[in-house]
């Protein structure tokens, strides 16, 4: 029998006023698996991630992470989830090391100086440990954001447009980092607009349209063109 999924979403519905963004969405993601969620602007990708991260409460239905209900047991869910959203969650006037120290202290991680330095090295920012984040590029901020999870070791990573604004080298680094995360049994949900090599890390492609998963298919040998064709078939977002 297959292990229980790390993420289970059942009949998830979310409305903002009269606007129904998610309308009975069902999806599972197992450990060691990466799900790429594609969809037009406003399709509900970010809403889904925010519900899983416990930032937004669902109107109806359930979402669980590591067996904990995202609405009823948010505190337990937060111990297992790492979210990388549009904001990098970093303070511009602190250095990279100070940012990392702040977040690990707040999360009660008691990481040693060596562990923090190691985390910065793992995201290739060790040379910039003492530099203020204000001077960092978008890619460097994204990497610093991910350094927190090297120490916190969440079981689930939720990524909103993780490759946006990254140069080729940073994209390659992120791909390797995510592949390594998966190999350690972590689950990834990644919202993206991209059809290119960024989807290389995904094991499954889900197309979100009309508030539901219109297509959930293994990525397998699907090429970027195949994915584009499927996307056009299931959404109104003309390519």
């Amino acid at each position: 029998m297959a292990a229980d999924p790390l993420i289970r979403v059942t009949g998830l519905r979310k409305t903002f006023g009269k606007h129904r963004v998610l309308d009975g969405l069902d999806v599972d993601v197992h450990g060691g698996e990466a799900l790429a969620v594609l969809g037009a602007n406003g399709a509900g990708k970010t809403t889904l991630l925010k519900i899983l991260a416990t930032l937004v409460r669902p109107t109806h239905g359930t979402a669980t992470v590591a067996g904990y209900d995202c609405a009823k047991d948010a505190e337990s869910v937060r111990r297992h989830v790492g979210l990388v959203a549009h904001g990098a969650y970093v303070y511009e006037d602190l250095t990279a090391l100070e940012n990392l120290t702040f977040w690990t202290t707040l999360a009660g991680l008691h990481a040693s100086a060596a562990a923090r330095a190691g985390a910065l090295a793992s995201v290739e920012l060790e040379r910039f440990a003492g530099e203020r984040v204000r001077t960092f590029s978008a890619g460097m901020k994204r990497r610093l954001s991910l350094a927190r999870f090297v120490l916190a070791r969440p079981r689930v990573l939720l990524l909103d447009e993780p490759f946006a604004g990254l140069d080729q080298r940073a994209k390659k680094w992120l791909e390797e980092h995510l592949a390594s995360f998966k190999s350690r049994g972590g689950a990834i949900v990644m919202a993206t607009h991209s059809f290119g090599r960024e989807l290389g890390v995904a094991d499954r492609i889900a197309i979100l349209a009309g508030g539901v998963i219109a297509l959930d298919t293994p990525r397998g040998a699907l090429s970027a063109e195949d994915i584009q064709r499927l996307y056009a078939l299931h959404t109104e977002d003309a390519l």
Partner: protein
Amino acid sequence: MWKDLLVERRSKETLNALFFFALLLLFVFEFALGPDRERLAGALPGLLWLGFILSGLLGLGRAFVVERENDCWEALLLAPGDKSAIYVGKLAGNLLLMLVVEAMLLALFGVFFNLDIVPALPALGVVILLGTIGFAAIGTLFAAMTTQVRARELLFPVLLLPVQVPLLLATVKATEAVLLGEPLGAVAHWLKLLAAADVLYVAVGVLTFDFVLEG
């Protein structure tokens, strides 16, 4: 608190702005009152606290601005553990900043109005500390409540000032007595009211901050 003070030390945004604001306030007071020492003596406690409250409103209103940059507010929310620690840290940072601004304002009052406030300083310090703790405690909570609201600049003082009325009454009365040279014992009833309000406001902040953060 360490993070907030470090950010402020490097950016100096709030402290610089508050210093110049305090200076402007004193010019306004100077023009409004003129050189009449008698009028000044009667109005001084009120003016002093008006200066503290107005500069405090500006400082507290910016307390969570740094958390909006790069969506750090979301990350605070996602941090596992007791959120009241965030409140206590923010409160400590705000309190320190307000006390620094108040010390500057007090010194400038002395210079601008040619007042000898040194003999009253120890007693005045107690009144100012007690008044500022309560102001910062409820101000930090309301700043957090309004930081994600569009009309926050308007809503923040509208919410905060009515709650400050008991504190303001006690601080002005106690300051008036202390500046007239009365001992602290003579204003013990006002100090007890301030201490009780401080305990109440800090407790409300600690107990409700989690709900405020969660929205």
